[in-house]
């Protein structure tokens, strides 16, 4: 299987663990990725906030590049996924935006969770697990844009997605049922309104802990950034925050613990104590 790959700007910066673990997993699981040549920022989160047409055109330029490869395009970033899938819907319904006349919308857009959450793939992954994540109890946090709005994402169950739970259970972990798995973390308010992000992330930590989770797991670089940062602030305020991990890091860990663990050094929150207490190397 071969796919065009759009890492997104955060994949080269604050979301590097998600990008690196996604590439590595695809490599180990027989999916060939071809990074889009000369891709640009999709505009998330600011372009559409200031000018909807600018947001569509920026994302559409990447779709035009994907069209030329003849491949469908996959991204690990939730926000990029929402912008690319939204722009594709726009192109199919209203035609190409001005300035990006060569886009056809022929390449479909997937989020990494769409790809890995597929039933056949879960079985394939399960067969590769070397070190089951036994003893870990996790709260899967999806955030907003991998699921909503369903007209763009094509999801059947946007209020209660289950792909991450299925994958992590296949990796040997336990998952909890909890009510905030698709409730917003505050998104792009990180720099401008960090106290709101703190309040929303505080609710997430609190509820996940009450549900019995030992760590929060996400697939979105913006959610990760907000939660990982608030981990420090919550600890300072005496709230016992949970370590934050990408689901792709945990999948990689289950296949190759030392490789999975090598990504933890980029985190602000520290999962090492949690892992060693459960006898995970």
């Amino acid at each position, binding site marked *: 299987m071969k796919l065009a790959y759009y890492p997104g*700007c*955060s994949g*080269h*910066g*604050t979301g*590097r663990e998600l990008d690196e673990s996604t590439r590595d997993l695809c490599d180990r699981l027989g999916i060939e990725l071809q990074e889009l040549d*000369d*891709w*640009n*920022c999709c*505009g998330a*989160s*600011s*372009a*559409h*906030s*200031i*000018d*909807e*047409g*600018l947001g569509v*055109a*920026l994302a559409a*330029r990447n779709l035009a590049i994907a069209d030329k490869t003849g491949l469908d395009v996959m991204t690990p970033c939730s926000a990029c996924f*929402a912008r690319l899938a939204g722009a594709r819907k726009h192109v199919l319904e209203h035609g190409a935006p*001005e*300035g*990006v006349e060569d886009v056809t919308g022929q390449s479909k857009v997937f989020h990494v969770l769409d790809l890995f959450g597929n039933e056949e793939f879960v079985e394939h992954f399960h067969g590769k697990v070397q070190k089951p994540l036994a003893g870990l109890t996790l709260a899967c946090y999806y955030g*907003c*844009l991998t699921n*909503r*709005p*369903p007209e763009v994402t094509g*999801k*059947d*169950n*946007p*209020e*209660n997605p289950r792909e991450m739970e299925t994958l992590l259970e296949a990796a040997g972990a336990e998952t909890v049922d909890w009510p905030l798995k*698709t*409730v*917003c973390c*505050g*998104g*792009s*308010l990180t*720099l*401008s*309104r*960090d106290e*709101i992000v703190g*309040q*929303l992330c505080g609710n997430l930590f609190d509820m996940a802990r009450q549900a019995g989770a030992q760590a929060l797991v996400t697939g979105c670089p913006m959610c990760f950034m907000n939660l990982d*940062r608030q981990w*420090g602030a919550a600890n300072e305020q005496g709230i016992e925050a949970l370590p934050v991990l990408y689901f792709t890091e945990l999948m990689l860990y289950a296949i190759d613990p030392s490789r999975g663990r090598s990504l933890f*050094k*980029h*985190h*602000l929150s520290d999962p090492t104590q949690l892992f060693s207490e459960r006898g995970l190397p």
Partner: protein
Amino acid sequence: MSDTNEYRNEEGGGAIHPTSGLAREAEEATGINAMSCYQCGKCSAGCPLFGITDLIPHDLMRCIQLGLEDRVLRSRHIWLCVGCETCNTRCPNQIDIPRLMDYMRKRAMEKGVEAAEPGISAFHNSFLKTVKHNGRLSELGMMRDYKMKTGEYFKDFKLGMALFKRGKIKLFSRKAGRRDVRAIFERRGK
């Protein structure tokens, strides 16, 4: 069918369309009919900013219906809304409220209305400035520009250093597609 769609009116909430004022202009620009809101409040019940923002979504919809333009454009909500898409996912009349927020934000800027949340407006402008220049987002460049605009030079210094030490913030970001991206911005008058 999705679990949120079963109560939706597929006709889009009936045939009443606004004939004048803010709601009419919003519909002309976006195709979204604000009059189809019947104030059920489902959007506000799920809004993550409930208790934080000044106008919760169904209040804001009512203001649009009543043509209270000043109240809408001067609200903090049009800036605080991050587009989590919960309201439109749950709306029984399929009203795309986040797209209406995008429109109201744009309208406020075009009319020269001062943003009720200047920091958020500054963030978007700093973000887009680096994208226009580099073709991609430079996280460091964006932060630097944002700090210059807001004067909050040291507020996130500790965080910035922690991220830099962990190899997450690069001094030099990669650039791509600069000519095309600049042309896209210029075509949109940005």
